[in-house]
């Protein structure tokens, strides 16, 4: 009787031991997964910091380092050509300078928008965090375009012109930036990762009021 009882106790202890070992095994797998997740998170955070540190410079606005015309090479890849390494695609940068040679303020806001749109093609990896932060920069640049236009919230006529001119400027850049099917597809895939977000402050990189024209 005593022996039978002891055998049962041993069996129960064995089951508990195995259950515990399985539990610990799964727990260790979760820990390893968690460590991998943390490493990826660190990489993402560093990349996000880089994204928010990208700024348009006054030299870019004044055209001190304009690139040569990339010609047919411009559209061969989604990234395109950026010979002067300022983060703005060369064909878009040149189009802005050719269309608005006399307005540094307009160039400032348009180049910032072009810089933000190009950013999505330059990311070493894309996940929800990266995509959302890039689009936050794009929204910041989108709002910045309105800063150089005349606005009067109490005057419908002025506001109509404000909205119309804003659309013209933004679509000028966006249409040039997304000028091929591959680029539009890449954009659609990229923004799929975006979650909702709040807007950034300090919407313009350049203090446009200090510009002469």
């Amino acid at each position: 009787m005593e022996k039978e009882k002891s055998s049962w106790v041993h069996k129960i202890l064995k089951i508990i031991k195995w259950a515990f070992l399985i539990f610990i095994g799964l727990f260790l797998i979760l820990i390893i997964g968690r460590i991998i997740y943390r490493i990826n998170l660190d990489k993402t955070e560093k990349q996000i910091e880089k994204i928010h540190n990208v700024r348009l410079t006054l030299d870019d606005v004044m055209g001190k380092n304009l690139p040569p015309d990339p010609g047919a090479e411009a559209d061969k890849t989604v990234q395109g050509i950026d010979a002067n390494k300022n983060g703005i695609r060369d064909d878009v940068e040149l189009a802005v300078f050719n269309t608005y040679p006399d307005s540094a303020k307009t160039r400032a806001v348009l180049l910032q928008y072009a810089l933000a749109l190009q950013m999505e093609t330059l990311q070493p990896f894309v996940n929800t965090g990266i995509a959302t932060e890039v689009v936050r920069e794009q929204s910041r640049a989108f709002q910045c375009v309105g800063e150089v236009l005349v606005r009067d919230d109490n005057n419908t006529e002025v506001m109509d012109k404000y909205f119309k001119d804003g659309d013209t400027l933004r679509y000028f850049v966006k249409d040039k930036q997304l000028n091929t099917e591959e680029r539009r597809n890449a954009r659609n895939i990229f923004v799929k990762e975006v979650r909702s977000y709040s807007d950034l402050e300090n919407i313009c990189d350049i203090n446009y009021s200090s510009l002469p024209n």
Partner: protein
Amino acid sequence: MKNKIVFAFVFVLLFSFHSKVLAGELCSSNGYTILTINGINTNKDGAIENKDKLRDHISQGYFNNQPLKVDFLYNQTHLGGLGDLIDTVAQGAFDKKSDYDLTEMLNDASQKVTTQKVLLVAHSQGNFYSNNFYEKVASEPGGIPEQSIGVYGVASPADYVAGGGEYVTSDTDKIINKVAGRIFQTLPPNIHIALQDGDDKDGHSFSDVYLKYQGARIVSDIKSSLGKLQNNDEQASDYPCISPPDFSFSHEAGGLALNTADSIINGTKNAVVFVIDGTRYIATAIGNSFNNIGLALGNMFGNLSANVVQSLPDTNSLTTILPGVLNNQNEIKKDTKPKYTIQNTPTETVVTLSAKNAEEIFNNFTDSSQPIFSFGPVVSGFTLKKEKV
């Protein structure tokens, strides 16, 4: 000894992962949030553009000298638009109140809304979602009191705006008047937009028609709607403004199915990625289960010494009496006052109820489909007697 140390170490490790995060202000009374909800067949780029344009139209980040945040809740396109169409009919004709996308929106909102005052601005099918969102959140536990949340509708296919909000629908909007209006009851058009060459032929686009031609009115209506929102003293500043919804396994499985189907239909190669994501969700769910078990065990061990007496079964709540436990005569307390006397004979079980309100309890017992207590198999009979004391 060595094993005991390892055992103790693992347990400490298991239960030391849970720490409270000290939070700052999560729900501010200073500020406004506008959440846009897009309509059918709008890709995310379009939803972002709508949100950016609305923000540009409304202000430069302030209303009533308080910060104004404009964000978006994305109403995802499913099955190449067919899923949205089915959803729209279900919402418009059959009053469907909840689905995968609404739960996702509630989750998004719970993470993003940091002000008490919230206005939902919806376009097209987004109006069904904004109405349902309002019903799920307004003055509900973990939600927003009615005075702090509002809805504004643009091109609405619904027959009302939740919370008595304002709306704008053009009589030249073919999608609302010629399509939606024929299937289900919609709000009547209240403006006229004269379309021009190059405009959206259906006259339905949020930014290219409504904002373009009625921007001033929409801004005025939205400002008026924002002006009606008030602070409340029910939402604590150190708690999220909106509690996150409960994610069920069926929600995750539904999301996986929708995403996989979307990927296949869109002709992309992302189906595999979504399956991997789905596997990750399931793995996460399993992980969460372990987490919960860990938490439960942690709480149990942590509170064992304090709660050992309270953890014991309460005889007052004893509801099941096994036949073998019953002797010829047992007395069980159901409440402190009423008494049930049970007599078990080889042929019959007799329960005698002795209580001041025996009549009432007796009636409840006999009328209720949920018995007060249950028995094991009774050999051949059951009698219930009442006895007023």
